[in-house]
């Protein structure tokens, strides 16, 4: 258990180190732009940025993949993107309507936006999460694969209760007998969201996976597609001809059917927004708390900034602790609601 304590210690240091490095950053730029700073740390980017001084920038460059209708496919390291090389045709727009997008300068001087299929910070984070999940879960199930009746041990003991929880307390009560075919989807969803949420909390990396609306959009879209595809006759008839509703609500103007039909789309949109907003706001609060240090030191002086940092760090630790809880809750809620929608789409019970 000694290593456990070391892990906690290292984690605590991890929470503290970037704050110190940001302080150095603030000294460089006296005209501190708070909003830009906050969004820089919450939004996606083409590199995993740690810290920078006037001479050194510590960041992991990520591969950039572009398709330009003008010059075809491009594949290069994001180091080139940030190098401010005038001869290089690609750069990131600092302002304007295409802000933060990759722009291609054409030879005649005009600019176009190529199709960006880069491995961004979020995508890299997802790949790490996926690899982690595959390695850990396949290892956890290796014993079960060899001998299903063996007493669970090690990783299997960690994973199995969660799997059983999702099966017994989410899939079976909400979906019923048909839960078997949706269970892999729900389990993958839960573990993917949970691990993504938790990876996002490792501050020095600052990978905001589930706080990216594209990711939650895809997850909610899968729920939407699976719900719609597996929806039975009863599900659709409840939407277009809801029972126990007076006829004048349906007949000349199909008011209730319209509301029900909108419900098909609002449900997954709510799923998407809830997860996104929770994780995004968690990251944002921490970014704001850290930005407060630089704001204070640029508005007043360094001593005030250092004083603020004490309070900010304490609050950040508190917020991150809450975010750990939120990570579990959001993963659970997303899975439960998906299961509920699937259950509603496949149920045969009259109600």
């Amino acid at each position: 258990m000694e290593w456990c304590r070391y892990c906690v210690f290292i984690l605590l240091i991890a929470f503290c180190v970037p704050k110190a490095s940001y302080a150095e950053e603030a000294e460089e730029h006296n005209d501190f732009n708070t909003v830009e700073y906050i969004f820089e740390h919450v939004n996606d980017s083409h590199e995993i940025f740690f810290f920078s001084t006037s001479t050194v920038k510590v960041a992991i460059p990520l591969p950039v993949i572009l398709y330009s209708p003008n010059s075809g496919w491009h594949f290069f390291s994001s180091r080139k993107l940030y190098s401010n090389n005038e001869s290089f045709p690609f750069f990131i727009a600092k302002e304007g309507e295409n802000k933060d997008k990759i722009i291609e300068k054409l030879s005649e001087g005009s600019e176009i936006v190529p199709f960006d299929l880069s491995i961004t910070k979020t995508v890299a984070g997802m790949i790490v999460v996926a690899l982690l999940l595959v390695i850990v879960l396949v290892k956890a199930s290796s014993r079960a694969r060899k001998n299903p009746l063996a007493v669970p041990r090690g990783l299997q003991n960690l994973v199995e209760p969660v799997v059983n929880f999702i099966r017994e307390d989410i899939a079976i009560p909400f979906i019923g007998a048909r839960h078997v075919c949706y269970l892999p989807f729900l389990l993958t969803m839960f573990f993917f969201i949970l691990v993504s949420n938790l990876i996002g909390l490792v501050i020095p990396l600052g990978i905001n996976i589930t706080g990216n609306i594209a990711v939650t959009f895809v997850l909610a879209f899968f729920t939407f597609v699976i719900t719609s595809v597996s929806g039975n006759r009863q599900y659709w008839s409840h939407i277009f001809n809801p029972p126990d509703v007076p006829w004048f609500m349906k007949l000349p103007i199909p008011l209730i059917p319209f509301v029900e039909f909108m419900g098909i789309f609002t449900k997954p949109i709510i799923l998407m927004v809830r997860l996104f907003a929770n994780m995004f706001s968690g990251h944002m609060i921490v970014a704001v708390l850290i930005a407060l240090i630089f704001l204070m030191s640029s508005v007043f002086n360094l001593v005030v900034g250092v004083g603020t940092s004490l309070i900010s760090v304490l609050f950040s630790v508190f917020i991150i602790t809450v975010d750990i809880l939120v990570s579990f809750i959001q993963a659970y809620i997303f899975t439960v609601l998906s299961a509920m929608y699937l259950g509603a789409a496949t149920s045969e019970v009259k109600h």
Partner: protein
Amino acid sequence: MFLIPHVGTIIWTTIIFLLLVYILGKFAWKPLLKALAEREQNIERALTGAAEANEKIKSLQAEQEEIIKATRLEKEQLLKEGVLQRNTIISDARIKAQEEADKIIENTRKQLAFERAKALEDLRNQVAELSLEIAGKVVSAEMSDKIRHEKLVKELVDDIELN
């Protein structure tokens, strides 16, 4: 803007998530869920088996108790019968022995009486013979003194009669 989903990220997420569902579904969830279901069935089977065994044990115990009770009853009855039998045997034997003894005594008494009577008769005969002999001798020896002899004879005979 952070509220507009980025198309590249959508494509990557879709690819990664679909791959993840496929790989985990095949290599992680399938064996884990199978193991869970199998273990569940196994536990259920074991539990019902235990309950059945318990029931069996209970019924066996009841049976055993009944057997013990029956045996005890039988033993008591046997003991009682034995005591009864012993008593009857003893009393029978006693009665028989008494009868036998009585018979023997009776027989002995009869024989004794018979022997006595016989002995008396023998004695009487002998006395008579002896007295005849004596009388003969006296007669032959003392024919001279007739009167005295007669007296003597008379006395002798009287004696015998007295006896």
